[in-house]
């Protein structure tokens, strides 16, 4: 019932205040407030509902809509403490007045409430302060629910437990409900008297009652309060504390893990074929839900348990063993792993690294390729770092899968695998890397060169030797520097052929310099004579001439030999007329000293 308030001057509000006294209600008495005030509330409610649907809570449009709605309540609460809306299919009625009407059912708040059985809505002053936003959220959620959803407006309203909003409803889901009824039997029929003899029945009942009562009195069996252990009827403090703790435990347990644990137990204890098949089907259906819920730990647990079941379950049939084995294989399939990576990348909060690691520990090597392919695409640095650590572990556990990727030129994971092999100094990957050094993509060839250089083993360097003649300058440069650094004798022939070859001056200066230095480092003392000759080859009759830059390269290379003979050879050209050579000599002499 609406409680009228004393009328007074109507105060500030953004809402248009109706002028004049309220109209009469159905009983002939004036209404406690003008219905326009409520109509305005409902109009702004509709706007706020639309804003809730369209904007996020931090959007100014949404916030303005909520503020306007709050403001619309104010003039109404100045007149009444509560309003009770009767809900019809397409209209809302207050005190016999239609305050909202919409003939269509779409975007109709009356229908929204009506269809789920709500027949009246009582709004109390105060609803706008704390419960308006949750109400809008509940309404918005209810509007978007599919018809076969687990909830409707009624269940959602119940869950929120509004304090300033009450509703009455009819059960619209009542079909098939039969009201409980009495047994239909005739009460009071006792077996000691003829069923049809009413008086005898009554007397027999009276007699039986008296006997029972007398027996209780005679045997002092009358029920007395002191006969009861009164402590049973009150919980003591320790018991209350225990119960509180137990309830806390109920809500802190990992429900899903415990329920899954029950399934694993059942699989072990129930040996029937059909039961195990059913459990396997349930388990097989689970990973997508667990992944969607971000519960990677549960997936890992499931994979671990599958291994345990294979080992422990008695009378396990071979096809069932295979199904259990397949759990990890299926989850490691590239398409599945890609989905997971996408979910991780798109998640607001990435999963804990421990969970991710736990899961990947259980996955097979086939998971490696999609992760490696995804790594360069990841935008979140934190996720990328986590996954890099994950792939490291996977590659260490499944080197064959790294090799497989290296042998697949078209794999998007190839650059990652090449880099990984290098980073992990995977000796076993050299054969594969030797192949990727012939890849059409110079980027991959460079990465391979880097990888092989990282491995640095004689096998790797031998494979890398091919890089010295790579069509790409960067690859050649990298390869020759590695050869120089490692002093790899196996490359001497190739390097020497280039340095002492007739085309040496056709390559750019940096590369030329690198080759000269590599030659010096690899050939050491054996390079002294050829390099001295080049350094001093400033021309003359029948003498070979080298450009000053080439001679400077030879001078710098001599410095790498670090011997008195090398020093003497450098000093020999100290007075060369070419500035480039003299500068090289100066630098070389400094270096050879250090």
């Amino acid at each position: 019932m609406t409680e009228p308030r004393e009328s007074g001057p109507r105060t500030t509000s953004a809402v248009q205040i109706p002028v004049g006294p309220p109209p009469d209600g159905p009983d002939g008495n004036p209404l406690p407030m003008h219905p326009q005030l409520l109509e305005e509330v409902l109009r702004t409610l509709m706007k706020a509902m639309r804003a809730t649907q369209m904007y996020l809570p931090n959007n100014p449009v949404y916030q303005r809509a909520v503020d306007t709605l709050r403001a619309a309540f104010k003039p109404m609460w100045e007149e009444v403490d509560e309003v009770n809306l009767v809900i019809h299919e397409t209209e809302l009625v207050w005190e016999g007045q239609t305050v909202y009407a919409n003939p269509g059912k779409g975007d109709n708040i009356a229908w929204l409430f009506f269809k789920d059985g709500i027949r009246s809505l009582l709004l109390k002053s105060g609803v706008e302060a704390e419960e308006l936003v949750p109400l809008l959220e509940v309404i918005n959620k209810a509007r978007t629910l599919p018809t076969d959803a687990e909830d409707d407006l009624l269940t959602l309203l119940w869950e929120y437990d509004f304090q300033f909003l009450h509703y009455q409803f009819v059960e619209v889901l009542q079909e098939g409900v039969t009201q409980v009824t009495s047994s239909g039997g005739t009460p009071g029929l006792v077996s000691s008297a003829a069923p049809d003899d009413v008086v005898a029945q009554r007397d027999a009942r009276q007699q039986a009652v008296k006997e029972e009562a007398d027996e209780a009195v005679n045997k002092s069996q009358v029920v007395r309060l002191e006969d009861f252990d009164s402590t049973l009827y009150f919980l003591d403090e320790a018991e209350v504390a225990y119960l509180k703790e137990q309830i806390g435990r109920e809500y802190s347990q990992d429900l899903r893990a415990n329920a899954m644990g029950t399934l694993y137990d059942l699989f072990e204890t129930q040996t029937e074929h059909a039961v195990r098949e059913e459990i396997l089907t349930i388990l097989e259906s689970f990973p997508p839900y667990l992944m969607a819920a971000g519960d990677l730990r549960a997936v890992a647990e499931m994979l671990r348990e599958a291994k345990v079941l294979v080992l422990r379950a008695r009378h396990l049939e071979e096809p069932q063993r295979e199904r259990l084995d397949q759990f990890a294989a299926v989850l490691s399939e590239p398409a599945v792993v890609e989905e997971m990576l996408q979910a991780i990348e798109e998640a607001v909060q990435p999963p804990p690294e421990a969970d991710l690691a736990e899961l990947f520990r259980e996955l097979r090597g086939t998971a490696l390729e999609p992760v490696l392919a995804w790594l360069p695409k990841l935008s979140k640095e934190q996720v990328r770092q986590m996954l890099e650590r994950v792939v490291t572990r996977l590659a260490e556990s499944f080197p064959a899968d790294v090799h497989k990727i290296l042998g697949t030129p078209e794999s998007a994971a190839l650059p990652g695998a090449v880099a990984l092999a290098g980073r992990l100094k995977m000796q076993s990957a050299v054969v594969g890397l030797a192949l990727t050094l012939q890849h059409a993509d110079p980027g991959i060839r460079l990465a391979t060169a880097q990888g092989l250089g990282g491995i640095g083993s004689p096998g790797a360097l031998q494979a890398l030797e091919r890089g010295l003649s790579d069509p790409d300058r960067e690859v050649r440069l990298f390869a020759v520097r590695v050869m120089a650094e490692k002093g790899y004798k196996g490359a001497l022939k190739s390097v020497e052929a280039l340095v002492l070859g007739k085309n040496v001056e056709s390559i750019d200066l940096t590369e030329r310099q690198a080759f000269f230095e590599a030659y010096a480092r690899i050939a050491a003392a054996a390079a002294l004579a050829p390099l001295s000759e080049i350094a001093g080859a400033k021309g003359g009759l029948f003498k070979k001439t080298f450009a000053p830059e080439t001679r400077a390269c030879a001078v710098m290379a001599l410095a790498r030999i670090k011997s008195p003979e090398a020093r003497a050879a450098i000093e020999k050209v100290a007075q060369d007329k070419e500035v480039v050579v003299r500068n090289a000599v100066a630098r070389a002499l400094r270096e050879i000293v250090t």
Partner: protein
Amino acid sequence: MSDERRPAPRGSVAITSADTNESVLRASGRALLIHFHGAQRALKLYPVENATTQRALDDLHRGALQVLAAEQELEVRVMGEFLFVNSLRLRLELDNYAAFSSVLGMFREFGIGALRMDEGAERREWQVLLSLMAGQAGKTPAGGQSKFDDLRARLEAGGVTHLVLEPESEGQEFADDAQAAKQAAKRCYSQGVAVTKEVMTGARMGRAVSVKKMKRAVQSIVDQVLSNETSVMGLTTIRDYDEYTFTHSVNVCIFSVAIGKKLGLEKKQLYDLGLAALLHDIGKARVPLEILNKKGGLDEEEWKVMQAHPWLGVLTLFGLKGYGEVPYRSVLVAAEHHMKIDLTGYPRVIRPREQGTYSRLVAVADGYDAATTRRSYQTVPIPSDKVLKEMWENPRRGYDRVMVKALINLLGIYPVGTCVVLDTFEVAIVAGANPDPTFLNRPLVRLALDGQGGIVLPPGTLVDLAERDAAGQFTRTIVKVTTPDRYGLTVGDYFV
């Protein structure tokens, strides 16, 4: 179902013989109400002189005279949602609900609590009454007079003296509230049973279940326990033998939620608990019906099948079509409710675990309801005091003792539905704990037999055993707990 005599209004005592010709009164009472409605409708549609109207009035008057002649009295009374003719509650059926609903509506609109016809009534008086009611419906009397007073004044002015109206009294309103609460509890209970049946049948047939319905049913039970605990707890005494599996699930749900309330659980926690309790026996949907409904004892093999129901419940809930998210808490309660606190029960446990809190709570509610209920393989229910004693004292039962104590706290010394002998030689059914907690042994009861062995028909007369006479002595005291079977009483009838 048979129509029931309510305790006669205005404090009259109980009917003491079972030989009243109820069937005649039932039939003539229904006919009277249908004639009343027919005349009402005719007056709305046709002028009073119209032959249809006249014929309808004839039927009404003739029907009224028949009842008066047979019963020496005719009173139509409204109590809550029910119509009584001479204290006999008329049953609502598909072919008469429109007439009843219209008459009820008319009585309510004019604030009429009862209509009595005295000897000497004329047909004309019905015509005046119904014409006035038709004419004044939907109108507000001038001068602030109530509709009832206005109608009575008009009747007097119209010379109607043998049709006497009685207003709805305040007592009537209280009775209405109590009746409405009882009706709400019944609706909730019926809904719970229907939903459980639908879920279990659905699970048996592999059909999808309506989670929405299940939610609503549990929410409704939580609401009832929070606001109307006595009524809804009373309904747990129904113990329908044929529908045992379904009523048992609803009973366990009600007991669990009520214990949860006692333990201070929040509303949403009560919902979680209630849902798990309602579904705790869902595995029975996969136990063959011939075992589930087998009368007499089960052999070893059959017990083995029966004992599979907790884990069958796990499989059922994991595969329940219609559930987006697996109801894990319900899965655990279904799995653990027979596990016992020391895990020595069934199903066998391999991985380390503890019986969950809600599982222990539901186990207590389940154990109590199962033992105190007559079912196919337990034809004699065990008295509740003995059940509670066993649960409390025998550790091999595997209940959490604090949970059992919470149940004892909830039920009191005399649980709802206990049949007791009073020192007045009356027999009564406990209807609820005394609102004053100091009267632990003086619950509210419904008298079922009077001191002379006469039957007080359900729902019996509600009596507070804490009532004292003028000398300060208690009017009635329990001397013994007895079995309702001894007196042919069906406890559930006193709560429906």
